[in-house]
């Protein structure tokens, strides 16, 4: 995969089709990939196909909204869906974009690795398993166990739009991937509220989740607005919960379940259980899935006369 990506990147750079390519490189700390911007052909070998690459590279496209740059981008299935969501909102130009789509078999998560193994000091890949040296000693975890919930729930491994595709096609698993949501719904309401509050009270408002998300791209986020002040600064529990709830609501029809927010959180707060529910609401109520159909209108920007209105008095 790495070789194929390098090959394509080299081609478009030397043909002058793009000014630079956004891709993944090996990170400095264990089990982390970092985004790189390659503008010279001789640097192409820095590109890799990472094991721990939950960063959504479509995020970086927003910076070039008003600049006349031609960009190559290495995009997983979910990243291409984000690109579609951005195109839909006129955030980027398709003409200035060259998408190296990747048939992504799923990424591994360092949040999960931390959950399974502990505080990791060094890591080594042994094919089907990863061997971690942690503060509590050595631990082996299989790749399957390191998969984040969003990759396990993924039903769009193949790129939705692309100029070239690398990697072998992947058979989509059965089911719709929303089992975890249905499982959570079985809990009682007070339990669910309790869970929301206990997860969100850990938030430190570093906004890594928002910044890591390509579709969180408002010029001014509601949480930063001071007049009126919708959400007080500080660490009040209700403020933190409302911040995440409104962020989730704003993701209706835009979230592609790439998992970048959860992976970015320095406190390891679970965020996908909220956004995935929003995706399910949008799918069941409005028959819409983010970034799958480039032609469909965003669900909250349109309506059907026969939308079910069962909850209205």
């Amino acid at each position, binding site marked *: 995969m790495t070789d194929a990506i390098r090959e394509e990147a080299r081609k478009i750079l030397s043909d002058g089709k793009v000014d630079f390519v956004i891709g993944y490189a090996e990170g400095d700390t264990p089990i982390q990939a970092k985004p790189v*911007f390659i503008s010279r052909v001789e640097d192409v070998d820095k590109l890799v196909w990472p094991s721990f690459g939950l960063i959504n590279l479509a995020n970086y496209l927003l910076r070039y909204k008003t600049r006349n740059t031609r960009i190559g981008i290495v995009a997983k299935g979910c990243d291409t869906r984000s690109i579609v969501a951005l195109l839909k909102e006129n955030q980027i130009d398709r003409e200035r974009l060259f998408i190296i789509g990747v048939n992504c078999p799923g990424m591994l998560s360092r949040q999960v690795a931390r959950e399974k193994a502990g*505080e990791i*000091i060094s890591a080594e890949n042994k094919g089907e398993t990863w061997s971690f040296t942690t503060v509590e000693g050595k631990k082996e975890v299989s790749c399957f166990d390191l998969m984040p919930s969003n990759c396990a729930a993924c039903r769009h491994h193949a790129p939705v739009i692309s100029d070239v595709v690398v990697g072998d096609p992947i058979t989509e698993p059965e089911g719709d991937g929303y089992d975890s949501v249905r499982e959570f719904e079985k809990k009682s309401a007070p339990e669910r509220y309790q869970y929301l509050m206990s997860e969100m009270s850990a938030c430190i408002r570093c906004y890594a989740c928002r910044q890591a998300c390509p579709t969180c791209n408002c010029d001014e986020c509601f949480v930063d607005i001071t007049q009126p002040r919708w959400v007080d*600064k500080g660490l009040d529990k209700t403020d933190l919960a409302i911040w995440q709830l409104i962020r989730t609501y704003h993701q209706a029809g835009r979230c592609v379940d790439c998992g970048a927010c959860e992976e970015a959180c320095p406190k*390891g707060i679970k965020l996908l259980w909220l956004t995935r529910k929003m995706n399910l609401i949008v799918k069941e109520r409005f028959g819409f899935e983010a970034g799958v159909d480039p032609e469909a209108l965003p669900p909250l920007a349109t309506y059907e006369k026969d939308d079910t209105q069962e909850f209205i008095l």
Partner: protein
Amino acid sequence: MIKLNELRQLYDHLSRNTPRNTPIIGLKKEGNRYYYRPLKSYDEWSSDVLLGNFSPKEVFFPQDEVLFYFKAQKLIESKEEIKPAVLWGVRPCDIAGIGELERMFNQIEYKDPYFMERFDKTLIVGMACTEPWPGCFCTSVEGSPYESKGADIFIYPIEDGYLIETPSKKGEAAIEGLDVEEVSDVSQLEADRRRAEDKIKKYNFEGIADKLKSMVDSNFWDWIHNPCIGCGTCAFVCPSCHCFDINDSSRGARGLRSRQWDSCLFEGYTLETSGHNPRPSGSQRWRQRLMHKFSYFPQVFGSYQCLGCGRCGRACPVNINIAEIAAKAVEWVEPQS
């Protein structure tokens, strides 16, 4: 220096000889991360962990702190009483970080009473790092895994026990009554220090303060900030980042004024009321971050504001390593356009 066979002796001594309910704050596992939290017992302490995921600065400088309350024109002081505390088992880089904060908050003209009260009432028990982590780079920023400066009590783990040093009077008083013999031969420590220092990756930051000063308009910043997504993770985990934001929260005539941590990488950090933003792009914000740590701070206070703990690199969602960037800045040659 004195020698102890078990660290528990010192812990018990401190918990017995401090006023009732004095918290002993040390590294503790919560969820799957390590924080500096009050310990219930010695066994709760995660002794194998070098650094918490978050720094001990929150002990002195909480993320969200009420400064005062008000009712119309009347000011009501915050009633929270600041009690003495023991900060247990912090590493030299974090101690240096606390020192930087103290320098910042304890200037001749301006003293921060909130920070200073906590600082004065806390006994800092430091500990040397025999096994540094990959990602540590304290030796490149004038630190050392065996540096006891700034601590009140400092622990050196040795083969058959622990050597205890008391660099400050406060520390000396705290261990008074601990019934153990003095050790005079501590030559072994020098070898231990060198061995630990050799394990740490060394970067060359020579002349960086002046170099950065000449790079204000450099192209360097344009590509260095590229991967940064502009969150506040690095500043929030940093032991020496001390920027804060002041906010009022009110309802009717009553309200409170509080301060929260802020980060120079937030877009709204420099946003002015008029709507003008003096640092509108990521490259300018990154320039500020690096300049503050490696140029402005050394100019004013004579030492780097980065202590080489490497937390920011580990916590960063996109794996930006400030040491790499600083080292690149030192080597940077402006391309001829």
